[in-house]
């Protein structure tokens, strides 16, 4: 397979996924509305005290982002699996890891990026101090692609199961632990004027590692689900 053909396939897949996403706009909005609702529940549950909310803001926003991502992951490969598109992709001769990567990138752009864009609103609701806002956005920008990449492995493993959604969350939440810790501690550190570049650096390392490794695991999982 020539390099050009590989690049064309990647772009073609991305375009197809965007078109599909655009045609199913309502489905895309669900995880985002879910994100807003979850964050709203916290002030109602723990009380509206601004100091308390500011304290728990990074954790609440990040946990809501995790939940919203996992909610959207279940449908990542499902419709392609059910109508046989996935089998055709495997038969196409293109690298399956590349196909998985294209699918994951599309997922991040339609499910992860909106979370990053919504985060200023969430930060305002949760009364996050201004010093932390930029770092929160940065941490989400670095972290949500990792959520999609690692989550894709779980999505691919559970795609052939009827009730994969609950299992998916059991599989991927433990893998999200390091990211959650690093991201929330970076934001909390920024709020009290402590250095936070170390955490963001480690998160970026995690992004590079999962960008290079996770598509292969996803490809293996897809092959397994199709066998």
């Amino acid at each position: 397979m020539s390099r050009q053909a590989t690049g064309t396939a990647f772009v073609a897949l991305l375009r197809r996924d965007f078109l599909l996403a655009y045609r199913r706009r309502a489905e895309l909005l669900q995880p985002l509305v879910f994100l807003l609702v979850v964050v709203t529940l916290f002030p109602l549950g723990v009380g509206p005290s601004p100091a308390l909310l500011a304290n728990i803001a990074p954790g609440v926003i990040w946990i809501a982002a995790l939940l919203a991502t996992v909610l959207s992951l279940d449908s990542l490969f499902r419709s392609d699996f059910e109508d046989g598109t996935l089998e055709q992709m495997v038969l196409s001769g293109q690298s399956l890891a590349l196909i998985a990567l294209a699918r994951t990138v599309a997922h991040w752009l339609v499910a992860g990026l909106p979370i990053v864009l919504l985060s200023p609103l969430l930060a305002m609701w949760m009364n996050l101090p201004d010093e932390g806002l930029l770092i929160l956005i940065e941490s989400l920008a670095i972290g949500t692609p990792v959520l999609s990449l690692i989550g894709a492995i779980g999505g691919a493993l559970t795609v052939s199961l009827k009730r994969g959604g609950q299992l998916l969350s059991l599989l991927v939440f433990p893998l999200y632990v390091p990211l959650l810790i690093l991201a929330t501690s970076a934001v909390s550190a920024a709020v009290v004027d402590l250095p936070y570049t170390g955490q963001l650096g480690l998160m970026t390392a995690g992004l590079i590692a999962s960008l290079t490794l996770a598509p292969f695991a996803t490809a293996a999982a897809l092959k397994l689900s199709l066998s």
Partner: protein
Amino acid sequence: MNPIYLFFHKTGSPPWFYKYSGKLIPWLWALFLALTIYGLYLGLFVAPADYQQGESVRIMYLHVPTAWMSMMIYGLMAIMGFIALVWRIRIMEVLVISSAPIGAAFTIIALITGSLWGRPTWGTYWVWDARLTSELVLLFLYFGVIALYNAFDEPRKAARAASLMSIVGAINLPIIYFSVEWWNTLHQGSSMGSDGPGIHPSMLLPLLLMATATKFYYGANLLTRARLCLLKQDHRKRWVQDLLSKESN
């Protein structure tokens, strides 16, 4: 045939595995029992109580070996899972999924003994300390592998999915461990540092005996489970039918 290849081929064949693991299992149980009885005797009656922790230090003889096993078994599952996926050896798939419940049990024992020890020593059953948290995450990883295996109808596909999941989990496990450690630490350092163990031989000996005993327990339990799993998977095949007719005669 190349002797190495022959050995590889033979061990990978279920009837051969069934026959020889059956011969090995009684020895493993016997060694486990002997070492456990001696180790517990030394640990509970002979070894001195700690000058700070008092008698509760004796929980260590159960806690530390089970915690070691919980991590070792997950590592082994990843290695065996890799072999199972790359060379498609069915015995390895069976060994991976037979390991998971044992590893989960060791993790639960380590967590329970740890909290029982923490109550008199730290004054609380549970703290969100690095080692406790990563052990809890490890338990969730075990549950994930077991749940994934049970979700599939076809056993071989299920075992391969579980193998892949254990590899992904094992790559993440050190990252989880270091991130949690960096997040919050209360647990004391390891008793077995790189510059030699920091504990007295009278306490070290029962600890090592128990650590060895748990490995024999794992071996015996693993082989027993793997044999049962093989019998279930192959119940229509000739070697199982032959075995059954031999037993009934």
